[in-house]
């Protein structure tokens, strides 16, 4: 099956059809999706601001990252589920929309970056790493997650 074929199959699915036919399901799912985005934003920013030396400076970064992690993963799951539902209802539109591909690329990079490079830097600790690397990692993280959020918003603009 080609990629477009897969997208067409998604569009034809029963779930996608149900969401398309309801006047309030899409808005509701989308609003929950937006809440998830906000919570991810908070969990990411608590850690990134700390890495930038701007937030909770007195706390060890590794501890903050551990505290924020369940909220980040939780809302990531919520966003995955709600985002998947939204996608099913308008898969073909997404296929032809640059913002969708931009968002998916950002999302992939953001998740990989957060759970590999960023995690490594946080666990290495401040003393064994030049402080500038903490800042670079934080900025890249903010940039990638912003790409996800803003890319997502632009899927809605035609």
């Amino acid at each position: 099956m080609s990629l477009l074929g897969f997208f067409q199959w998604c569009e034809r699915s029963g779930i996608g059809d149900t969401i398309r036919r309801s006047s309030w399901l899409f808005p509701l799912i989308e609003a929950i999706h937006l809440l998830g985005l906000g919570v991810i934003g908070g969990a990411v920013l608590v850690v990134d601001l700390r890495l930038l030396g701007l937030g909770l400076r007195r706390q060890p970064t590794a501890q903050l990252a551990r505290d924020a992690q369940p909220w980040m993963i939780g809302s990531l799951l919520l966003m995955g589920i709600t985002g998947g539902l939204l996608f099913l209802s308008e898969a073909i539109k997404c296929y032809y929309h640059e913002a969708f591909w931009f968002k998916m690329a950002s999302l992939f990079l953001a998740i990989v970056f957060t759970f590999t490079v960023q995690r490594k830097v946080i666990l290495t600790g401040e003393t064994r790493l030049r402080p500038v690397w903490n800042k670079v990692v934080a900025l890249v993280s903010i940039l990638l997650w912003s790409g996800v959020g803003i890319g997502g918003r632009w899927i809605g603009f035609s």
Partner: protein
Amino acid sequence: MQIRLLAALCCLVLALCYQATARTAAPTWGNAGRQIHVLSTVSLQTGAGQGIGGSLFAFFSRLGDSSWSVGLHESRYAYDLIESVHVWTLCLFFGLAVMFDLRLLGWTMRSVPVSEVARRLLPWTVVGFVVMVISGTLLFTAIPVRSYQNIFFRTKMFMLLLAGLNVWIFHSGIYRRVGTWDVASVPPRAARVAGALSLVLWVCIVLSGRMIAYNWFDCDRQPQRPIINFLTSCAPTQSEEH
């Protein structure tokens, strides 16, 4: 500083809510001024709002005709860009406010003193809030009359007022004694209640904010239930009622 800012916002929202009780006509072509005021004394004095100023509806009608509003509305990218800023800043403001509320509930960062979270994170929420208000005002300016009569917009403004009130009560109440519970992994009941209330209110504000985009209850979509027309200050013409 935060308190003063929030107090100013509360006043603004209160004024909006007060004015929102004025019933106004459905915006039809060339008939933007017909309105029946219930509570707005200012408008009564200026004669049913037909004069200069008088009511928010007249003000927003004129705002909608301004080059600013038309420019924002008709520009290819301005509206989309401002909305992107609004959504990005939502992460900064709402996200960090949620993290603070979760700390108040004892659900995250339990080992970090509450006052430290407040001192380090709340200034960022203030920055976020200012950007939210500016970008939100611009979004409103792009389609003022429609937004003003939108039931979700009104709900959002009302809940903003409640959220501001909650912040004020928290900071002038239990937070004054934060020294006695600063390091508690689970703060006292009053602080938890403030955190939970804030969480619920901001979630509802985000939800209703997102729903402003939908026109289910808009004034130009008649017939609506009387309660909806009351809440949106919409007075449909006779022909629209059927």
